[in-house]
């Protein structure tokens, strides 16, 4: 992975696809995600799995996502936003 400080939104979104992949059966919807894509409504991800996605993202980006930030992560855009925020805080 490239230096986290220089990763742009698009790069994070592409990386996020890999994080989301094990949790959605809808591969077509996954490949077409954009910032508005809702994890539960559009990708049909089980709400219990959101926490697994957050844990996987923490490992992948070597960040810590606090509970308040985690609660914001319902769409692809908000996930990317939180991940970028935490990466720049490092």
């Amino acid at each position, binding site marked *: 992975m490239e230096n986290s400080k220089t990763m742009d939104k698009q790069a994070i979104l592409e990386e996020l696809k890999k994080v989301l992949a*094990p*949790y*959605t*059966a809808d591969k077509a919807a996954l490949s077409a995600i954009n910032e508005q894509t809702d994890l539960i409504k559009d990708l049909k991800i089980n709400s*219990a*799995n959101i*926490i*697994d996605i957050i*844990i996987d993202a923490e490992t992948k980006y070597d960040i810590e996502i606090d509970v308040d930030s985690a609660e914001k992560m319902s769409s692809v855009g908000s996930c990317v936003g939180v991940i970028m925020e935490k990466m720049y805080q490092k």
Partner: protein
Amino acid sequence: MSRRVVITGLGVVAPNGTGIPDFLQAIQNGDSGIRYNPQYEEFNFHCQVSGVPAFEWDHLKNYVSEVTFHGLKGEGIGYAIKAALDAWKDAGNILDAENDTLWDTGCVFGNSVSDTGVIKTIIARVDAKEAKKLGSRVIEQVMNSGPTAYISGRLGLGNKVITNSAACATGSQAVLMGYEYIKYGVAKRMLVGSTEHVDPYIFGAFDSMRVLSRKFNDTPEQASRPMSATAGGFVPGSGAGALVLEDLDFALARGASIYAEILGGANNSGGQRNGGSMTAPNNEGVVRCLQEAITNSKVQPAEIDLISGHLTATIADKMEIRNWIAALGNNGTKFPLTNSLKSMIGHCLSAAGSIECVAVALQLFHQFVHPNINLEDPNPEIVEMIGADALPTTCLKKKINIVAKANFGFGDINTCLIFSKFEDNGKFENNG
């Protein structure tokens, strides 16, 4: 109207065969599934052999969704899913992820402990102060109802969904419970069975009790020796067995083929009194259980062609035979043929009863009696009681109509089931 309950589907994950065709061939051949277990040696167990199914974990991708498969670690749950869904398909059903809830169909699936491998993961994480890294998928695999939850969710089962646990009597108790729900009109169809994952923690504790085989570590296939003079403890086994039970009319209406019929059964406890304890049965309780099962099934003791015993290869074997004699009112002449599947697969604890019930259904359907292996030196006290002719050491192709199957578990729990050949069925005529 008195309902009849029939077996229409079978699934098995056993140390000597995964899937019904392999298992059928193995029990006809007398193939042992017992192997040297290097981990047990590493852990300094007295017993260094065990029966572990040849189970390809990735094969589960054919049974559950990719999302479910990701994060699935519990081995006992994996065995249960395969056995149960194989039984479901064997009964002529399809694996449909989109079907509506099946309100007439339930599930009783048992286990003795939830997966210790997953429990270990939790303990390690929590002790390392990393509880928040555990994620959402571990609870469903350490709750005792994990196997039933995965099975019933996959199939959309909407009747009673119950996880039972009665130590080594678990499997046959699950079958009896499913039978009763259909018999009493609560359900039309029940997917029943049990699972056990052979892990070092549970069997380490058994090893400490000095109840495991230890004198045949160099010859693993000879290690499980029920009723033999050299029986010296049981061999750890693992796997899962599953049966689809149906109301006969329901089964006939959908054109199902039928393996065998369950005529009745009984489940009791000796109360840990009069010689009974946590680990030993009250013999009066055992005899009552066997007699109740026979009475409930409306068969005569003399009609029983085969006893599928609990018979683990401990000193309890001869007590068990004595109890069968008492229950049948048999004086030792013309004692029913008696076999122990454990001679081939070891003792699968909770899964023992269900795997043995699968073997009973196969013996009735294909009309054979599987051999007792490692019985070249039958215990003279047992031979004196029932005669060596009752203990087949080769596969017998013969007509059998009624089979009695029993299991006994810690906590002084007894279960007995009476199975019958299903006579008026094309499947039997064609394939018997």
